[in-house]
C-alpha cells in the first residue's frame, strides 16, 4: 500500500467530484446552481480523460484533445444556458426549477 497517487487514487478523486455534481443537479433549486453542478460533472469527465491518457496510453495525446473538446462544449453549453435563464427570468420572474413546470403532464 502506497500513498503516492496512482491510477486508482486519481479515479476515486474524479468519481467523488462527479458524485457531488450529481447530488447538485438533483437537489439545486436555482437553475444557475444546476448549471454549476453540470460544470462540475463536465470538469471531472475531462479530468478522467487526462488521467487515462497519462496512465494507460502515455505516448499518445488523444485524451488531452478530448479534454479540449469537452472544455469547448462546456463553454457552448454555458452560453446557451445563460441565454435561456435570462429569457425565462424575463417572462416568469424566477429561475427556480421547481416552479418552472408548464410542460409537466
Amino acid at each position, binding site marked *: *500500500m*502506497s500513498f*503516492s*497517487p496512482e491510477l*486508482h*487514487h*486519481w*479515479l*476515486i*478523486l474524479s*468519481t*467523488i*467530484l*462527479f*458524485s*457531488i455534481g*450529481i*447530488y*447538485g443537479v*438533483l*437537489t*439545486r*433549486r*436555482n*437553475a*444557475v*446552481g444546476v*448549471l454549476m*453542478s453540470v*460544470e*462540475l460533472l463536465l*470538469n471531472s469527465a*475531462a479530468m478522467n480523460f*487526462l488521467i487515462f*491518457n*497519462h*496512465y*494507460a*496510453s*502515455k*505516448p499518445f*495525446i488523444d485524451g*488531452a*484533445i478530448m*479534454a*479540449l473538446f469537452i*472544455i*469547448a*462544449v*462546456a*463553454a*457552448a453549453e*454555458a*452560453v*446557451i444556458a*445563460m*441565454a435561456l*435563464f*435570462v429569457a425565462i427570468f424575463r417572462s416568469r420572474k424566477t*429561475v427556480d426549477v421547481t416552479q418552472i413546470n408548464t410542460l409537466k403532464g
Partner: protein
Amino acid sequence: MDITLNPADLTHTIAFYTLALTSIVAALIVVTAKRIFRAAVALAVVLICGAGFYILLNYDFIAGVQLLVYVGGIVILIVFAVMLTSSLESIEEPPSLGRKALGLFSSLAFLATAVIAFSETKFPLSSISAEQPKDVAKAVGRKLLDYGAGGYVLPFEVISLLLLASVIGAIVVARNPKRKNEGSAT
C-alpha cells in the same frame, strides 16, 4: 512498491492530497451553498484545483486552457447569469427532504458502483519506460490539424461551428422581443 520516497515524489503526493481535499470541499460548497454567488466562487476554486491536477499529470497546456476558458470565461459567464437573474441577493431555500434523500442515494450509488467497478478492473497500464511527448502543446496542435488517419481536423472544424451557432443562438434567445423593431427602422 518501495517505501522510500524521493523528494520530488513526496512533493507530488502532498500537492495531490492538498488539491484533492481543497477541490472536494469547494465542490461540496458549490452544491450546498445557500447564496448562489458563493457557489460561483467555490466553482472557480474547483476549476483552479482542476488546472493544478492537470499540471500534476504533466499536461501544462490543458491546464492553461482550463484557466483561460473555464475560470476566465465560464465562471464569469455564470456570474453574469447570477446577476441577470437577480439571484445575487436571494437566499435559496434548502431542498425538500425527499429530494435530498434522492440526490444522496443516487450520488452515493453511483460512487459505490464506479469504485467497485474500477477496483475490480485490471487496466492496461502503459509501461514505465513509455514517454509522454516532449512538448504537449505542439503535439496537440499537430494532432488537431492532422487530416490523415487518427487526425482531428473534422471535429476541430465542427466544434468551431458549434461555438458560432451557440453564440448566435444565445443572442436570439436572450434578445428582448418587445424591442424587436427598434433597430430596423430605415
